[in-house]
């Protein structure tokens, strides 16, 4: 399952969930719309989702101008602007140039404006730095230049020190560095630090600024020219895109350019100007009328009235103690809810009360930063505003109780300090006692009854009691932080002490590009070498560990309280994440198709991602090679004869009971050979201590494939492959491999897999687990492919978006790659 597929699947599921709850894809049912309310689901609701901040959409002058334009030009003047434009365009662009005091070009939408401009503006040798929260339409346009090899990266939202640091680095290679940001951000409503950005432009002549000020348009500045230009005049190294669809209340987008040449260039070369349709006369007529309002003093009165409503809203949010994410003078507000299910609950309740608001949910915000996004327009009355906020405050507390969540958890998820007077919520503790489930937490597997643990989870792989003791010993007291893991074990029991859930967690530093394409990891590894060894690394709370595989969760789904137990486990995980100070939680490996679990996880702010395929051989009921071959497909039989049997006599298999330190050193080098070659599953290199400890642990077996020397002398013999395997009662687990690539011609890796299978058979095992990756090779031996998924939650999605923004230079296909595991 590809990452893209899981992303779409998560969106689809979210969409389905929201549709079922009647929160999205709604229809305004009014025959005639007159003010700031509409009918939805046969109920009148006050509209707190409109971006027409100045309420100009009902202005009679604009309506009349739209009608007149239709009378004059019909419903559409259907021709590409490259050929001919209706006269309204010229009139509008003339007026807009006066509004912005800079040359302008009108595009059918702001999104198409970005698509027209960015590929024309950006040269192959330029670098682009995206603000983490820059509007999706800008990011999509940037995707168009990535295939040209343009360097694209991302900085944390509004972090000017980070931006400056990157400018300093990039200016050594790039003559033009574009910082792309929004003027007013569409979700939280916060503004870009324009003064600092301009200071940086003055300081670094390489810095260019591309800004989307759609939500600032009309609401701020002289003639309503927007937030950005209310702070500073147009800069010669700046291009601004803005919208006529929001407070301007007509249609289209505007590109505000530093000079006329730029306008001509975009108009001549920008794809949407060459081949897309123009704006309709009605929208153009309305836009011309809106321009007249903007060029008159009336605009300041409208702006003033909007500001009064914004001021009142800020005051009410404070008075009602709602966790508002951002207080400023923009008309966009966001009240934190954290969990999607809590956000959905509140939005639904508000709709039932007659208030239409928006849900701010993944992917526009991180999954655990869901909230109630609402907008304020000039048309709202104070009464409407207070009524809505009163209802929100009332239903917020009811929804918290219903979803078994606390306000403290909400503040924590948004990293906001919680007001002292609100720290009294004990809902969670009450829930625990109500469900009568008992949670047991341990720091070491030695504190848990071995028989019970092994009975629940011991047969699943390498995480039986002894296997976990090994991990605890190895991943402690190491020099590098990535090699020190913290272990936590959780067992949840019912009143009769029967376990419903048992699992373990490790908190460890991990690479965020672990599952990214190799070409992305290659770029990141270069920065880890030059800048910061822990660049794009996150302390992650894993269900299981980075050195175990399979389903790590014992869950008794036949128990009537299993869902309560899961909810309790998720609460415990949230606490653990706080305690261990992890920023990402990764719960793995779950079944691909489990809609019940998907829904539970989504409600709790987890999204689903694909993880590498796992391989297991379950058929070991054969007695010799011929019988084994018979179990294979026709194609695999051929492969076996050509690639395995042919070279079998070249190798000498050896099982090492008491290896020397010299041998372990050599094997470690072979392991590093494989590790350094493969970035497709990009993990930290395991420390030598892992291999030393394995060598002394009788539950681990180390097998080597020696190449027989032509001289026949023992000392001339060389090791082609080393296999590190963990055995438990019933399973043989092929965990790590090391290879000497000098012997590739003998298919040493394939031979290694075969010899592992033979060894498992010899030991009377029921299954052989072959681990992740190299799927094609493993399937040739009849391995069953398990396609698991993981549920992931990130405190903020910055690192993941940085990865998403990076240019995939050359896709490296991973299926055939030999991995260390």
């Amino acid at each position: 399952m590809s990452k893209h597929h899981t992303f779409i699947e998560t969106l689809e599921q979210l969409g389905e969930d929201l549709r079922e709850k009647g929160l999205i894809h709604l229809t305004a049912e009014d025959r005639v719309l007159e003010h700031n309310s509409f009918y939805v689901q046969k109920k009148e609701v006050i509209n707190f989702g409109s971006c027409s901040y100045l309420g100009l959409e009902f202005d009679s002058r604009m309506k009349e101008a739209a009608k007149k334009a239709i009378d004059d030009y019909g419903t559409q003047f259907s021709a590409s602007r490259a050929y001919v434009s209706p006269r309204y365009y010229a009139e509008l662009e003339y007026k807009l140039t006066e509004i912005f005091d800079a040359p302008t070009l009108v595009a059918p939408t702001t999104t198409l404006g970005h698509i027209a401009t960015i590929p024309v503006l950006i040269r192959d040798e330029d670098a682009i730095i995206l603000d983490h929260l820059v509007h999706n339409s800008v990011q999509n346009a940037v995707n168009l230049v990535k295939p040209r090899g343009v360097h694209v990266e991302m900085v944390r939202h509004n972090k000017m020190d980070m931006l400056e640091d990157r400018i300093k680095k990039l200016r050594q290679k790039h003559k033009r560095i574009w910082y792309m940001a929004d003027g007013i951000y569409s979700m939280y409503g916060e503004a870009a630090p324009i003064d600092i950005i301009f200071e940086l432009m003055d300081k670094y002549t390489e810095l260019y600024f591309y800004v989307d000020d759609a939500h600032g348009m009309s609401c701020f500045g002289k003639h309503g020219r927007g937030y950005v230009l209310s702070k500073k005049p147009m800069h010669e190294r700046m291009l601004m895109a803005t919208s006529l669809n929001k407070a301007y209340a007509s249609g289209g987008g505007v590109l505000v350019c530093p000079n006329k040449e730029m306008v001509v260039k975009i108009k001549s070369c920008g794809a949407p100007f060459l081949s897309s349709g123009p704006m309709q006369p009605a929208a153009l007529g309305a836009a011309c009328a809106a321009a007249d309002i903007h060029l008159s003093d009336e605009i300041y009165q409208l702006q003033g009235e909007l500001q009064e409503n914004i001021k009142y809203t800020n005051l009410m949010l404070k008075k009602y103690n709602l966790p508002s994410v951002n207080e400023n003078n923009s008309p966009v507000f966001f009240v934190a809810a954290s969990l999607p299910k809590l956000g959905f609950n509140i939005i639904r309740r508000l709709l039932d009360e007659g208030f239409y608001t928006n849900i701010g949910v993944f992917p526009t915000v991180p999954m655990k930063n869901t909230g109630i996004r609402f907008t304020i327009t000039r048309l709202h009355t104070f009464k409407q505003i207070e009524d809505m906020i009163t209802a929100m405050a009332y239903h917020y507390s009811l929804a918290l109780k219903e979803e078994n969540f606390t306000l403290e958890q909400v503040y924590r998820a948004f990293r906001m300090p919680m007001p002292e007077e609100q720290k009294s919520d004990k809902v969670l503790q009450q829930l625990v006692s109500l469900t009568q489930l008992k949670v047991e937490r341990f720091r070491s597997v030695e504190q848990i009854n071995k028989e019970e643990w092994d009975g629940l989870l011991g047969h699943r792989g390498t995480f039986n009691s002894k296997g976990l003791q090994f991990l605890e010993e190895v991943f402690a007291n190491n020099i590098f932080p990535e090699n020190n893991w913290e272990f936590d074990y959780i067992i949840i029991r019912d009143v009769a002490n029967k376990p419903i859930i048992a699992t373990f967690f490790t908190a460890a530093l991990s690479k965020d590009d672990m599952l990214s394409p190799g070409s992305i990891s290659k770029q990141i590894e270069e920065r880890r070498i030059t800048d910061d060894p822990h660049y794009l690394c996150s302390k992650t709370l894993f269900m299981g560990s980075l050195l175990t595989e399979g389903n790590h969760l014992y869950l008794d789904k036949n128990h009537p309280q299993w869902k309560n137990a899961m909810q309790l486990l998720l609460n415990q995980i949230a606490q653990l994440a706080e305690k261990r100070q992890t920023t990402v939680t990764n719960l793995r490996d779950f079944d691909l198709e489990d809609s019940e679990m998907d829904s539970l996880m989504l409600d709790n702010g987890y999204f689903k991602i694909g993880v590498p395929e796992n391989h297991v051989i379950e058929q070991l009921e054969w007695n010799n090679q011929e019988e084994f071959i018979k179990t294979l497909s026709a194609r695999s039989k051929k492969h076996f004869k050509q690639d395995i049997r042919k070279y079998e006599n070249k190798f000498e298999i050896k099982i090492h009971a008491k290896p020397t330190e010299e041998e372990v050193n050599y094997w470690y080098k072979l392991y590093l050979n494989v590790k350094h070659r493969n970035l497709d599953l990009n993990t930290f290199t395991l420390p030598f201590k892992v291999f030393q400890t394995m060598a002394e642990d009788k539950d681990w077996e180390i097998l080597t494939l020696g190449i027989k020397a032509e001289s026949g002398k023992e000392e001339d013999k060389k090791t082609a492959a080393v296999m590190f395997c963990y055995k438990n009662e019933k399973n043989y687990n092929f965990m790590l491999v090391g290879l000497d690539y000098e012997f590739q011609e003998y298919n040493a890796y394939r031979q290694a897999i075969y010899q592992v299978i033979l060894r498992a058979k010899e030991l009377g095992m029921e299954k052989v687990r072959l681990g992740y990756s190299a799927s094609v090779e493993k399937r040739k031996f009849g391995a069953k492919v398990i396609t698991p998924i993981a549920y992931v939650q990130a405190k903020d999605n910055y690192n993941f978006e940085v990865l998403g923004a990076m240019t995939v230079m050359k896709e490296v296909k991973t299926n055939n790659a030999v991995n260390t595991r």
Partner: protein
Amino acid sequence: MQLTQGEFFQFNLQSQIQLIKKDGIFMMKRLVYDTHLVKLYKIYEFYVEVVLKRTSNKVVSIEPVINGKIVEMYDNTA
């Protein structure tokens, strides 16, 4: 939700009128010369005087009541 006097006077005149209409309680009124009508309102935990021009019946200003004895200035029969 109640606003303090300081918060109330952060708003412009039109907004103050809106707040008074929403949350104010009319108490008394008085004439100032023949030109202006002054209305006393209790809003939240304080009092304000709304000054209207008689000819146009438009509010020209809203003033805080800082003197507790101001009630004595009103002739409720006016």
